[in-house]
């Protein structure tokens, strides 16, 4: 009997082509769109938005074209508690969260995998650009960079466990985006030219500050900008509006450019300083996950990336307290609490954690 794979379909090019490739490879493919946007948040449809009702319509058309069963399942409650509330709480705590990492950890590779198992699937699949490979020497599953380095999405996948990796297929890992679009056109997928979605899927028009304000108006309080010595320099609109390294939109006129260098949520303060103050060579991360091995036992040389769009930099990681200490060879700009640091050894994802 064919092995059953449940693929998460967003209606976009990537997951559509992934579904097609799996079907070509002989799997029994079932498409599912996870509905995650709370009812009261359904907003103006945007092109490229990944969870909207138009996404459902697109995915329906693609599934019909591929002749695979297709369903829409409700993940709203768990998404609300594990992603949206986390996102808001982090900002209110002066951090800058990455909701996609939370979604992958708690929704796609946890709840979704569980639901797929209930439906009798052996695997789930996604349209991520990454490669999952079994290391026959150690018997462990590895996560590796995709062939298309520009599209590589391993950064948001570092939390995957061995169980999750063993039960996940990522058929696009060996393709470039251009090739994927070409396949979409060849097989006449209706979504071949759809724009990539790069926004926060649950925040209308990407204005996250307004989104938080609407949900927790009483928790956003104006406060003060201070310098490193604690001198008040002006008023800020609430700490959720700021992130480390930010220069624009501060509303300060001090005769020289200043940058956000720290946020102190307990005192509702935003610390500003010179550009040199936002360069640091050490960080500490918790909620750490490692992939090629269970536990980091000693020092290890890696390349590390402190945000999705950051360049990787040479660093040494070592166990420290409940997490890991990362020492960069050159100082990094704007190391930001709440973002994830992800470690690589060549093309292999070593692991990562959340910057404290």
């Amino acid at each position: 009997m064919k092995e059953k794979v449940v693929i998460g379909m967003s209606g976009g090019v990537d997951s559509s082509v992934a579904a097609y490739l799996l079907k070509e490879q002989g799997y029994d493919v079932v498409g599912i769109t996870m509905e995650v946007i709370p009812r009261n948040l359904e907003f103006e449809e945007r092109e490229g938005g990944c969870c909207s009702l138009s996404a459902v319509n697109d995915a329906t058309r693609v599934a019909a074209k591929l002749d695979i069963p297709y369903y829409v399942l409700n993940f709203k409650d768990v998404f609300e508690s594990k992603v949206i509330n986390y996102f808001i709480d982090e900002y209110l705590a002066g951090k800058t969260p990455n909701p996609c990492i939370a979604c992958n950890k708690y929704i796609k590779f946890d709840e979704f995998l569980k639901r797929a198992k209930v439906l009798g699937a052996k695997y789930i699949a996604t349209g991520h650009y990454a490669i999952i490979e079994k290391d026959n020497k150690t018997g462990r599953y590895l996560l590796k960079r995709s062939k298309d380095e520009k599209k590589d999405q391993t950064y948001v996948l570092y939390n995957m466990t061995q169980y999750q990796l063993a039960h996940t297929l990522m058929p696009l890992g060996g393709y470039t985006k251009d090739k994927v679009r070409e396949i979409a056109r060849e097989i006449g997928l209706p979504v071949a030219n759809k724009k990539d979605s790069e926004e926060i899927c649950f925040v209308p028009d990407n204005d996250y500050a307004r989104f938080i304000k609407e949900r927790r108006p009483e928790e956003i309080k104006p406060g003060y900008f201070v310098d490193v010595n604690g001198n008040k320099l002006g008023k800020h609109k609430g700490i959720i509006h700021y992130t480390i390294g930010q220069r624009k939109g501060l509303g300060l006129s001090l005769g020289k450019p200043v940058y956000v260098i720290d946020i102190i949520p307990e005192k509702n303060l935003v610390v500003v300083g010179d550009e040199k103050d936002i360069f640091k060579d050490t960080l500490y991360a918790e909620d750490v996950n490692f992939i090629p091995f269970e536990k980091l036992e000693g020092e290890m040389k890696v390349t590390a990336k402190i945000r999705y769009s950051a360049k990787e930099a040479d660093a040494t990681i070592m166990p420290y307290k409940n997490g890991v200490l990362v020492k960069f060879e050159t100082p990094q700009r704007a190391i930001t609490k709440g973002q994830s640091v992800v470690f690589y050894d060549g093309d292999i994802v070593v692991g990562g954690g959340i910057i404290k």
Partner: protein
Amino acid sequence: MEKRFVYMDHAATTYTKPEVLEAMMPYFTEQFGNASSIYTFGRRSKAAIEEAREKVAKALNALPDEIYFTGGGSEADNWAIKGVAFANRDKGNHIITTKIEHHAVLHTCEYLEKQGFEVTYLDVDEYGMINLEDLKKAITDKTILITIMFANNEIGTIQPIAEIGKIARERGIYFHTDAVQAVGNVNIDVKEMNIDLLSLAAHKFYGPKGVGALYIRKGVKIDNLIHGGGQERKRRAGTENLPGIVGLGKAIELATSNIEEHNRKIKSMRDRLLNGIMEKIPYTKLNGHPEKRLPGNINVSFQFIEGESLLLLLDHYGICASTGSACSSGSLDPSHVLMAIGLPHEIAHGSLRLSLGDLNKEEDVDYVLEVLPQIVQRLRDMSPLYESFIKEGGK
């Protein structure tokens, strides 16, 4: 066991009966004339519409002039509620409805609240029945409309429509009922039941989709909803859906000509299925009223499981069912109806609606009774809730 295709979602929609389709066919290709045209070819189309109107009137004990064709049940609900509300604003701004209405009614009422109307949403008891005393108490001198569904689409509960009608008529308040689920399943007499407005949709009684009707008692003050040409005696603009209307007429004639016989057959299959489910699957609860319910409706909650997965697995076995109304985007929120009858969130999530109808045979019942207990058990075996329940000794 051989896989079957079993359609048990007649409350979502029904197939169009061959006799109905046959009656409609000439009006697509041969007799396609515009019913508003002067010439004979157009007049013939007009005659067909009037014949259908007569059939609908007969089915409800209304006058033909009290029947207006619409683009379906939702349009009829919207028209009745908005039309009465806006036309009677000088008398008052209060509307009474229930918490278990179809969204075509609920969302229309919510819209009217934004327009300055006040709406009372009556509670229902554990069976989904309204309390007539609550209704009486809710009435104020500003009340202009009571809108309460005839029979609920999810749990099948049939409301005391004649009693509601009496209360409304005595007080000079308009009474609208959404009878979309009731037509063909319950005898309806708008005169005897004191109904002022009634919505129906053809595709729920073996007619085509996209056509419905609103009964408006003569003398009811109501604004138009769809403005334009002078069709439907200047009340509902738009070139008539000629084949659809003909189909609706034929379908309502068939559906109401033999309600007792039809109900006896459906109800006997329904009861066998329901009894079998209750017997074979422990920790199961019937939702809705044990007797005062639609003949084909089963709505049950299986503890410890989650309805979406249940539906998908049933689909895998070729069984079409639903957990609630089919009118959302295809994904499921906990049903407002099940919440209103007081089910806890997690039990409401594990609910299943099977609605039987003319497409079903006794073999379908056998098949579902074979498949469903296995699926429920499989889901329970994977459910952490069930695991801890069993560990605690099944208490």
